[in-house]
């Protein structure tokens, strides 16, 4: 069936990930005509959703794939802890309250869940895992949306928005080589952040951004976000901040996803190009230890770091996608990494000399630590003395950005002048900064996307009728 551009859709959804589909399905179930405009080609549809694995939800312990219960108060505490209070309290409570509905809602939409099996993530109580991961979940949502008559276009990037005084009338898209006007009674903006927009990242990070790896697709450019801000929608979130983790430096520039993560750092030492340590590798347990290294490496020369472990530890963390660089001696390892051999030997020797005796246990904050170093290693410090030695190069891997648009509890956009938009809603990463002002909580992005996607879909459906 050819796509119609001559009619006025009740709901125009810009974006094609979890939040977009939740909004589209909700509005379609309310009987509205809906079109989904995904900027990426079909395979890459869904933005960061395709790389996700679970969503966090409050529940009373009866969800079949979860251990539990995880009550709302505990969820809120977790959210306060990671954001340091940088969250809109009312929206945070709304997120948590409505997260209770997500598993049944997703099940109805055809999404299947599985218990957390192997791997390192002990999230069985707080997070529901998608069977087959985010792409499996996304495929189910698309099938549901299409069954409800939603028009789903991929490779249809929004190039302009027609907005007057905070009132949306049409989106211009580029589709099959031609520009088209897609007119609508309401807009749901669910088009993600700008993590793949290197030029935008450079505004705050300068040339260092050339050495950043982007964990999601190259299509997360933030075009719709930029248009909305230019049309006077109120921003939220720190425009300079991004969530970034240390990932394998050999990963592709874009879309390396989960497989490029490295979990080796706490088991050894981390050095920079000068073969010097630069931060306490034993500071914290997962997931914080996972999340801090991206930023730390971003601040080092050439934005690269090297995690060095010995054969005692090489099998203690998740297997890596790329093999470790291996050598029989530290000097030889330095040579393979093109580091100064004498400097690395001294760093390792100094570290080994500072390691105090203790009982190693990487599952708790153990008593293995160094003494007398300017940069200590507070836990899990064991001498690097058992060849062969192994190294992984790491670079910052950018997951998402925090800048977004301000919304109210109807997911309706708030304008810079303080008024609310007549017919524009936002959901997902593009407004996640309202709830997650900084930090990260596993699965929270999908929770925000699904909760506000549904709220936006409800609001748009109601709005389109008036």
């Amino acid at each position, binding site marked *: 069936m050819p796509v119609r551009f001559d009619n006025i859709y009740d709901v125009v959804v810009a974006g094609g990930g979890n939040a977009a589909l939740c909004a589209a399905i909700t509005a379609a179930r309310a009987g509205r005509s809906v079109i989904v405009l995904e900027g990426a080609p079909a*395979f890459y549809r869904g933005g960061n959703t*395709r*790389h996700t*694995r679970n969503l966090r939800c409050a529940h009373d312990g009866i969800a079949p794939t979860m251990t539990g219960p995880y009550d709302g108060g505990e969820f809120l505490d977790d959210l306060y802890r990671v954001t340091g209070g940088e969250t809109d309290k009312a929206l945070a409570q709304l997120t948590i309250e409505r997260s209770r509905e997500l598993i049944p809602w997703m099940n109805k939409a055809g999404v*299947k869940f*599985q*218990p957390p*099996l*192997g*791997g*390192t993530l002990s999230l069985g109580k707080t997070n529901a*895992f998608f*069977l*087959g*991961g*985010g*792409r*499996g979940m996304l*495929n189910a949502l698309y*099938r549901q949306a299409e069954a409800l008559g939603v028009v789903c276009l991929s490779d249809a990037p929004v190039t302009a928005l027609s907005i007057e005084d905070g009132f949306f009338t049409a989106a211009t898209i580029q589709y099959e080589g031609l520009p088209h006007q897609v007119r609508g009674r309401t807009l749901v903006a669910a088009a993600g952040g700008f993590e793949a927009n290197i030029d935008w990242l450079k505004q705050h990070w300068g040339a260092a951004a050339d050495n950043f790896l982007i964990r999601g697709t190259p299509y997360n450019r933030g075009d719709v976000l930029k248009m909305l801000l230019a049309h006077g929608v109120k921003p939220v979130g720190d425009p300079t901040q991004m969530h970034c983790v240390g990932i394998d430096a050999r990963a*592709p520039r874009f*879309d390396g*996803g*989960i*497989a*490029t*993560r490295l979990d080796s750092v706490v088991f050894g030492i981390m050095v920079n190009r000068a073969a010097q340590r630069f931060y306490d590798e034993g500071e914290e347990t997962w997931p914080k230890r996972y999340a801090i290294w991206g930023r730390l490496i971003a601040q080092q020369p050439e934005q690269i770091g090297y995690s060095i472990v010995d054969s005692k530890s090489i*099998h*203690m*963390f*998740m*297997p*890596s*996608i*790329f*093999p470790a660089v291996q050598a029989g001696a530290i000097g030889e390892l330095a040579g393979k990494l093109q580091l100064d051999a004498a400097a690395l030997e001294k760093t390792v020797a100094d570290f080994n000399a500072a390691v105090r005796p203790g009982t190693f246990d990487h599952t708790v904050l153990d008593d293995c630590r160094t003494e007398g170093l300017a940069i200590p290693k507070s836990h899990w410090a064991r001498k690097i003395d058992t060849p062969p030695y192994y190294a992984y190069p790491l670079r910052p891997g950018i997951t998402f950005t925090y800048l977004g648009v301000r919304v109210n509890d109807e997911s309706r956009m708030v304008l810079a002048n303080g008024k609310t938009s007549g017919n524009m809603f936002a959901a997902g990463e593009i407004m996640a900064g309202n709830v997650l002002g900084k930090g990260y909580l596993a699965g929270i992005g999908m929770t925000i996307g699904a909760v506000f996607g549904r709220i936006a879909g409800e609001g748009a459906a109601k709005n389109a009728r008036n």
Partner: protein
Amino acid sequence: MPATDLSRSAALVEADRLMTICNACRYCEGLCAVFPAMEMRRTFADSDLNYLANLCHQCGACYSDCQYSPPHEFNVNVPAALATLRNDSYAKYAWPRAFAPAFARNGLFIALTAAAGVAAFIVGFVAWRDPAVLFARHAGDFYKMMPHNAMVALFGAVFIYAIAALALSLRAYWRDINGEVDLRAAGEATVDAARLTYLGGGGGGCTSENEMPSAQRRVFHHFTFYGFLLCFAATSVATIYHYAFGWRAPYALTSLPVLLGIAGGLGLLIGPAGLFVLAQQRYAVLTDAPRRGMDTAFLAMLFLVSLTGFALMILRDSGAMGILLALHLGVVLALFLSLPYGKFVHGLYRYLALVKYAREKRTAAFVD
């Protein structure tokens, strides 16, 4: 990713590359047995890969769920890579080794075997008696065409050969993958094989690109598998009738061997036909496309065995009985002969892989 090793086949190298990527991702671990088994390993020897390849039921769910499937530069296509390796493994363990090439051009091999089988019976009947006997009416008495003892001797010998060849192939496989068995593992594997637990993509059914997951393949496979078992039961009951009770064929339509045979025969018509139609609709990128003839040949043989069996039953009192008997026996003989060298073996290798998995998931620790 593993370094290039010239001693390894391309299929092994590719399977190793993919399992290394998958083991760093693990999103598919809820779909089937392959990924949990993978997670029990950090590196993948040839024998590990041959084990994992036979554990795969090729439902395709991990392809449509994968962030890294083509056109992604990681080019992850686990169903096709494991299908290719699995087909290689049938040849690798085949006994005798001289027959391994039968797997390369399996459609042709099976077709020639079938034609030779039919021709041998026609020539045999004519040579045994005279040309007229082939077209005479015998009131359903097959033994007018071929004495019972001769039939038993011929099929018994071929059957024993097939069993022996299969056993030796499977022994080589079992040793290579370091298989260990206990009663509980055998029981679990039997249930998983009987229910096709892992042909469901974790619950959705088989998927092709952009298609709804569907349980159709499982349904038609059940028709085929249980049809085969019922036919086997029919033959076994008839053998007992003959030797234990002295009740000679032909048996009445309402007798147990005939009823079992009819039920099984219907399964072997419906199942293979359904699987054949589904195979034509299947997204080719998920398969070992150059060797799909192996699947088609086996389905065709099962279908023909059943079809000729029914024709024989219906027309056994007519003058067509002689030629139909030659057709049926020829196809059955060819099926038996080709059992160790065709798609039939997939069930046996997979069963052993399931036994190994059932045991190791209890005894081995997951690698975190």
